[in-house]
């Protein structure tokens, strides 16, 4: 067995230092056995990958228990994301666009109902601290915007149909002055 055989796989994986790699490449030009072995190792590596490359199911879990958990833990993140994108409002959110087959619902202006908090979540403290901070600044929400979760998070991060609601006030010059984000119910 050629001494270079021990380095072939690390070489094809790009794991050798530049000196070693040059040496192996040079050797392969003159050693037919090693060249044939290298082809074989590459072939079996591809076959291994192909063996496991079965298309995973794209089914998304839809469990109320998990929904509540995620809503609580990421409500604050949603607030951050929406506040962050405010300067360019109402352009498209800067995060990854949704790639779902169904067209995402457009931002919908609806009458503001009373804010509803998410109960029984582990992350209530975070959610409330953001809500409390923003409430202090916002006298009365005048417009509520429903934001599908897929608009601000990667598709699949939330169960289909999950949405956040943003209450905001519009200033005299038309710019948004204050904003409060909270988890909303499913979009139907």
């Amino acid at each position: 067995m050629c001494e270079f055989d021990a380095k072939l796989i690390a070489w094809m994986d790009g794991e050798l230092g530049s000196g070693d790699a040059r040496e192996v490449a040079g050797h392969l030009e003159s050693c037919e056995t090693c060249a044939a072995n290298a082809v074989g190792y590459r072939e079996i590596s591809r076959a291994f990958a192909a063996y496991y490359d079965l298309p995973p199911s794209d089914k998304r879990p839809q469990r109320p228990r998990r929904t509540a958990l995620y809503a609580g833990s990421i409500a604050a993140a949603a607030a951050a994301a929406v506040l962050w994108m405010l300067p360019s409002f109402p352009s498209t959110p800067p995060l990854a666009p949704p790639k779902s087959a169904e067209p995402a619902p457009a931002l919908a202006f609806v009458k503001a109902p009373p804010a509803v908090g998410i109960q029984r979540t582990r992350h209530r403290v975070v959610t409330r601290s953001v809500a409390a901070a923003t409430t202090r600044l916002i006298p009365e929400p005048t417009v509520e915007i429903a934001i599908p979760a897929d608009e601000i998070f990667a598709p699949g991060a939330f169960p289909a149909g999950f949405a956040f609601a943003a209450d905001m006030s519009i200033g005299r010059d038309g710019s948004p002055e204050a904003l409060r984000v909270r988890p909303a119910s499913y979009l139907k």
Partner: protein
Amino acid sequence: MSGDSIPFALPISKFAANTREATALFEELRKPLLRYLVSLGLSPDEAQDVVQDSFLCLHRSLTSGASKENARAWLFRVAHNAARNRQRSYHRRFAEPLGDTALEIAGASTPEHAVLREEKFRKLGAAIRSLGDTERECLLLRAEGLRYREIGEVLGLATSTVADTVDRAVKKLAEKCNV
């Protein structure tokens, strides 16, 4: 925005940056992670759960200020450990060969698969099952494009051990499949 919002604007912008970072990683690594977990024997639903939990964990970790220089290896490690904790699934997977349906799917889904004749596939399956757990995991992570150093981080091995394990495992497969 009014000046009142400035006190919490800074932490929030950092929070948003972390969210963007986590979202970009999610886009890039969701499918490789799912594939890896299913390969380890989790059902697609279990794998989805583990992937979501792993990304939540990453988001929380980024938000608490932890530095994630190599988030890819970190995510694979979190997911790997979660999979190993589901021992029943893990062992169920390797107790059985792939079913006929899986073989059909594998044979039909891509041109690469089409050239792998079923007989060759069965032979390969038997060879893969004869590997040790660590050998198989090294090859799976390698197939997902992880560097030896990253594989070492995921599995808790020295980089040199990973190199030896990959070398040994590839040669075993090649030998058993007469490649």
